[in-house]
């Protein structure tokens, strides 16, 4: 635990040092990166120790905060969430050093690094806090730090708008959490989590209310549809290492909070599982559909985050159903699957955002439709992106496959053979998860295929350059860990969970990981064969003459890069098919006449919920509240009059 406290104080001190030395971009970057990496490494020690030993650590410190107590507790769940937080933040910090350095002449790097280190520290604190007030404070600190990181380029109008949207959404979530924590504390008569076990004896109505509040409050952070609207705005606006951390691990604090609260609420009603499953399916399917329709690379990744959160939530939903109907296979495998997906998503989504940042850094573009041919110019970034894309599509043997496989496995072995109570949700999950899988393959073939292969569609691609080593190494480590975690997951999972699960449950898990290991072996064999084929090919090519020529040369006299598929046209068939959900806006001015003048066609997919639900809602609320604006007229003496009237009324009332 000492290491953990050291790590927290290193985040704070290094953040302050970066802030103090903000005049020198080099010094503040140095302090920021050094503090971030050192803190993360120190923080990893107790987390891994808890994961491997199964023994929780706790710490308490006298604190003069009313109702609060500085109680920290690292148990298995905290440790499991801490590991991706520290790993990804350290790597993103390293990456950010070089990424942000190019902004040094126009932006204050010291403040950004201060916020970054505070963000990392507050995320760690959220995960280990064992007191409701401490949790809320850390939660708020995390929201504010990430808000300031998002508005790094605050001079741009769009960035400010994204920042506001994030700030408002996260605070709506916090409002629900505040209500929930206060109600829970009132019922348990304590703010300390260790006294909250007795909440499970409450009537099911009260626990149901807590559950709803938790889903809305934590869902706003985690990005459950329809509360996800801040993700596609804030992620593209933020600097890439920040979006990587926010998407990779910060939104997972919402998942963590939900699991933590569920652990207090005891035996779940059956509708909890249904609710989570429905939210998961909606987030997953719509998330990947919207991702498919995007042409901004980072926006696409942001929607795909919504999709992955949906998968995690589906897993949690099936877990709750497993508990409610007492089917251990569903419970154990579903839970392990969603936790494992949390880790996997942190790894590959962190990687993909870093790669998107590298593309942005090298070309200055985020629009996929203008990219092309980047694999030749940014070889490493392209390969790392490919690894991340394969992992996120859930293709064996990379890590994304493992977690999705476990969720499928739970449904097939635990759900389908059971009664209709679980068979129907399990079947729904299988259907929609496979739909999501297919769509995400389409989505990432588009992202990788259009951006990295083919010919450049815009001249700025021609002088695209690969990034420096400081940015390549973190991406490389993440890509490697995606591959390694994928290969090692069959033996890794039982080892990690052996201290957490009972012997019987561990047996179930081992059965699942045994099947997983068979698939892994099969894919190793497949890869081996593929390697042999590649070897044969290169041997054959050795003795022949190899020429390069233009890609599009099928009888065209003057081929141009504009003949290629664009990202939008690649996904057009699917987008058209699902247009009922997507509501794509098309603008076509077709060429007319015998000698056609230039025509144009454009397509955009605004967020359905933002357009149809939230914007009208907020505009109406704003109009109603405008009536109150007459009270705020700026006349100071009348303000004082309000106070006097209020005071006198109170006085007269009480006398």
């Amino acid at each position, binding site marked *: 635990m000492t290491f953990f406290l050291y790590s927290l104080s290193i985040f704070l001190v290094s953040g302050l040092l970066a802030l103090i030395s903000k005049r020198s971009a080099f010094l503040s970057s140095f302090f920021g990166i050094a503090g971030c990496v050192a803190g993360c490494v120190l923080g990893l020690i107790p987390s891994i120790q808890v994961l491997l030993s199964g023994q929780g650590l706790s710490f308490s410190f006298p604190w003069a905060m009313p109702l609060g107590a500085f109680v920290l507790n690292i148990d298995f769940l905290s440790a499991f969430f801490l590991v991706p937080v520290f790993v990804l933040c350290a790597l993103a910090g390293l990456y950010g050093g070089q990424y942000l350095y190019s902004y040094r002449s126009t932006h204050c790097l010291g403040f950004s690094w201060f916020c970054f280190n505070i963000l990392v520290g507050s995320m760690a604190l959220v995960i280990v806090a064992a007191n409701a007030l401490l949790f809320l404070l850390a939660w708020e600190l995390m929201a504010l730090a990430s808000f300031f990181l998002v508005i790094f380029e605050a001079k741009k109008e769009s960035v400010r708008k994204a920042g506001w949207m994030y700030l408002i959404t996260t605070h709506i979530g916090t409002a629900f959490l505040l209500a929930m924590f206060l109600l829970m504390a009132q019922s348990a008569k304590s703010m300390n989590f260790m006294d909250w076990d007795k909440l499970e004896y409450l009537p099911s109505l009260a626990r149901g209310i807590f559950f709803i509040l938790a889903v809305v409050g934590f869902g706003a952070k985690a990005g459950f549809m329809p509360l996800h609207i801040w993700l596609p705005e804030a992620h593209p606006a933020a600097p890439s290492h920040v979006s990587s951390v926010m998407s990779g691990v910060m939104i997972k604090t919402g998942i963590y909070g939900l699991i933590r609260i569920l652990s207090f609420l005891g035996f779940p009603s059956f509708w909890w599982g249904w609710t989570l499953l429905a939210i998961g399916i909606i987030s997953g399917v719509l998330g990947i559909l919207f991702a498919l329709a995007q042409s901004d690379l980072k926006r696409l990744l942001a929607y795909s985050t919504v999709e992955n959160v949906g998968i995690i939530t589906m897993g949690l939903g099936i877990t709750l159903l497993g508990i409610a109907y007492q089917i251990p296979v569903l419970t154990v495998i579903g839970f392990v699957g969603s936790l494992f997906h949390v880790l996997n998503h942190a790894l590959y989504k962190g990687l993909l955002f870093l790669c998107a940042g590298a593309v942005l850094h090298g070309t200055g573009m985020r629009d996929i439709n203008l990219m092309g041919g980047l694999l030749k110019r940014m070889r490493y970034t392209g390969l790392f992106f490919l690894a991340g894309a394969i992992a996120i599509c859930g293709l064996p043997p990379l890590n994304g496959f493992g977690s999705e496989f476990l969720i499928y496995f739970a449904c097939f072995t635990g759900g389908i053979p059971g009664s209709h109570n679980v068979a129907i949700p399990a079947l729904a999950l299988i259907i929609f998860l496979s739909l999501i899988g297919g769509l995400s393959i389409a989505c990432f073939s588009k992202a990788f295929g259009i951006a990295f292969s083919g010919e450049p569609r815009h001249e700025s691609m021609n002088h695209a350059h690969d990034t420096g080593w400081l940015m390549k190494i973190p991406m490389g480590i993440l890509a490697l860990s995606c591959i390694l975690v994928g290969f090692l997951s069959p033996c890794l999972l039982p080892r990690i969970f052996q201290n957490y699960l009972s012997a019987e449950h561990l047996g179930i898990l081992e059965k699942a990981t045994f099947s997983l290991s068979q698939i892994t072996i099969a894919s190793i064999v497949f890869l081996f064969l593929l390697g042999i084929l590649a070897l044969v090919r290169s041997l054959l090519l050795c003795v022949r003459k190899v020429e390069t020529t233009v890609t599009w040369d099928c009888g065209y006299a003057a081929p141009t890069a504009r003949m290629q598929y664009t990202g939008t046209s690649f996904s057009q068939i699917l987008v058209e098919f699902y247009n009922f959900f997507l509501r794509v806006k098309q603008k076509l001015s077709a060429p007319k006449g015998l000698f056609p003048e230039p025509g144009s066609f454009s397509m955009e997919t605004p967020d359905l919920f933002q357009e149809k639900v939230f914007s009208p809602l907020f505009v109406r609320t704003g109009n109603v509240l405008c009536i109150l604006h007459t009270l705020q*007229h*700026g006349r*100071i*003496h009348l303000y*004082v009059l309000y106070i*006097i009237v209020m005071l006198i009324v109170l*006085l007269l009332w009480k*006398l």
Partner: protein
Amino acid sequence: MEQLINMLMVVILLTNLLLLGSSRMGTCIPTLGFQGILLGLALPVLLFLPQGITTHILVLVLITIPLRGILFPFILFRVIRKTNIQREIEPFISYPVSIFLGILALVLAFWMNSRLTGMSVPSLHPLLLPVAFYTILVGLILIVSRKLAINQVLGYIVMENGMYVLGIAFAGEVHLLLELGVLMDVFVAVFVMSIAIYRISREFDHIDVNQLQNLKD
């Protein structure tokens, strides 16, 4: 003795009415200073003479008089000299109406006192609490009814004077440090406000509070 205290209370009430009724800053500021001296010197001395004067009271008197009696009027005089303001011509509420409101406030203050049965301290003078309430209310009326920022400061000081009287009522019970803290606050507030008024007058050529509403977003 009893007679003397009653007279003192009445004089304090009258200073308040004078503040409400006069438009000239040249009258208001000395009246404020006079009220400060009355509060600072006469009130504690007369009230606590029978029981013997403790160091607590002494410290309070020694700090209050220079502050409320001398320093505040001095600062305000400086401000009106610098901003070149003689009188407030058009307040929101005219002077006769202000006096009428003042009388209503007096009624309210006495009524409040009559309802405050739980707070009766045995050694308390019966007029002390009404005077305190009244002074606070007058301060608030001054703040609300006047346009010039300098009068807002004046009203603030009058209100503070009222709170001081309220504090005197419990002088034995309240910790000295607390009282000094309050005094310190008032001092800093007056200091800052006078600087602010000076700056506002330099920037906008007037110190009309009503026009400050243009500054809202």
